């Protein structure tokens, strides 16, 4: 809690209600918000136009770099194919996200109550995390086969670590005075967990979930590169080998759009459930 925030709330009580001044303030805030939204959109359009011009002016051949209009045309023409390949990738990413994060939350809870387990296994978790996904992905494909499960496992593993670290830290982010308060109230261990620790950990958990939303899609795509006939990863490999750059680019657009949407859903959940969190609302 910073000093300015405190004095601001203190002062807000002394303001006399002034409709005109308030309307002016709201209008200024609204135009600032639109400015924040429109500026990046404008910049993106500008970059696309420059790209299109560069392709036309320098006569770049389509398989080296397709023009944005060519990518857009492919997106439209092959929309069914693209969505058909997004479905398995999305399934793998979301399943891996759920499994990896649930496992991390459960193990973090265990760590908080069993310090010995944390001291024994946390360093191992750190070591596993330092192995690059490209290195362990083939191992998982060998173990679990060419199907869905290997990709889900890769996505789960890639989500697991950031959530484990953050959740462990979040469950411990309880002040000693809050613990003393719970003791004075004779709170049971489960009440301390659900009413205090779990709530304290939510900002930490959501920070990890937002990272995991993007990385789970990466995990699924990497899994598909190793061996798959469908999916965004498989389509990327096929389009590259066929020098079908417009399809390659369109595939990337669909993959990133899904990642962004997944991230957006988690962010929305965060703003919905953590209205109280100063970092979010302030």
């Amino acid at each position, binding site marked *: *809690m910073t000093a300015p*925030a*405190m*004095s601001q*709330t*203190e002062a807000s009580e002394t303001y006399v209600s002034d409709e005109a001044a308030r309307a002016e303030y709201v209008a200024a805030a609204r135009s600032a918000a639109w400015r924040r939204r429109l500026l990046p959109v404008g910049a993106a359009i500008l970059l696309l136009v420059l790209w299109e011009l560069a392709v036309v002016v320098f006569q770049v051949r389509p398989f080296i770099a397709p023009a944005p209009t060519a990518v857009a045309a492919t997106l439209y023409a092959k929309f069914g194919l693209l969505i058909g390949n997004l479905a398995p990738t999305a399934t793998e990413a979301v399943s891996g996200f759920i499994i990896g994060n649930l496992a991390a939350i459960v193990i973090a809870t265990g760590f908080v109550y069993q310090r010995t387990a944390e001291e024994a296994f946390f360093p191992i978790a750190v070591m596993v995390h330092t192995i690059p996904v490209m290195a362990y992905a083939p191992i998982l494909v060998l173990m679990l086969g060419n199907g869905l499960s290997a990709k889900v496992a890769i996505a789960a593993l890639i989500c697991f670590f950031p959530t484990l670290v953050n959740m462990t830290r979040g469950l411990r982010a309880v*002040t000693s*005075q*809050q613990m*003393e*308060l*719970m*003791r*004075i*109230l*004779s*709170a*049971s261990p489960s*009440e301390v967990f659900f*009413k*205090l620790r779990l*709530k304290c950990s*939510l900002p930490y958990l959501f920070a990890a979930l937002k990272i995991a939303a993007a990385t789970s899609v990466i995990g699924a795509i990497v899994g598909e590169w190793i061996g798959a006939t469908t999916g965004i990863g498989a389509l990327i490999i096929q389009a590259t080998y066929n020098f079908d750059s417009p399809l390659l680019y369109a595939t990337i657009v669909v993959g990133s759009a899904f990642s962004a949407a997944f991230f957006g859903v988690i962010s929305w959940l965060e703003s919905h459930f*953590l*209205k*109280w*969190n*100063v970092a979010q*609302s*302030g």
Partner: protein
Amino acid sequence: MSQAALKRTPEAPEASESPAVRLHNVTVRFTTERGAVTALDRVSMTVARGGFLTLLGPSGCGKSTLLRVVSDLIPATSGEVEVMGASAAAAREARSIGFVFQDASLLAWRTALENVELPLEVGGGAKHRGARSPRELLALVGLSGREKAYPHELSGGMRQRVAIARALVNDPKLLLMDEPFGALDEITRDRLNVELLRVWENTGATILFVTHSIYEAAFLGQQVLLMAARPGRVREVVDVPLPTPRGVEQRETPQFVELTAHLRRVLETC
């Protein structure tokens, strides 16, 4: 409600005889990386029911430790601790104790009203629902209309008011306050001091109030317990000769000036 009444009656007759707090030869020792520390050294004291005792002393004199022994947060290494005629643990389980911490220790995800309701939700606290509703208690501490505000939307003084309302929700017989206004500016602190005296008169609770401000100790307490540091021990108990109810103007009376001068002289030798 009837259950709570039944539960309380048996202890009432003999309990009314006993003081609110009685410590006899209480010693508390900690082991730290720099060796054993004696936080409290053979401390004996009593606080009568309905009394207001302020604990004053230099840092490290064991004021906070004393409150934590009374509230069963820290066990006494040796000596006797009696709260409301029973052990500290029994008093805690019977919800006879309310505690206000130095930082308000509100739960950030709960509104002001929900924070005040917390004691009714955990540890079977609903059985010890006090005579007042959480809403009335927020009104008592001057926060009507801010029930739905989250802690980050409240000023430091307001947060501490919520913490006081929360400590009162089980209608405790004993209120322990650990430098509750230490982090506030002087103007807010003065205002809250006056309001705390009003709450004290209103609830009839016994209050133990830790402070490092001489003026606060003298203005609030019926008695001031002066403590010395290393090891933490009782130095002197001073009766405050000011009449009640008190107002800020009493700080300018000769008695008050004399009292604070005395407290200062004793503190210098602690």
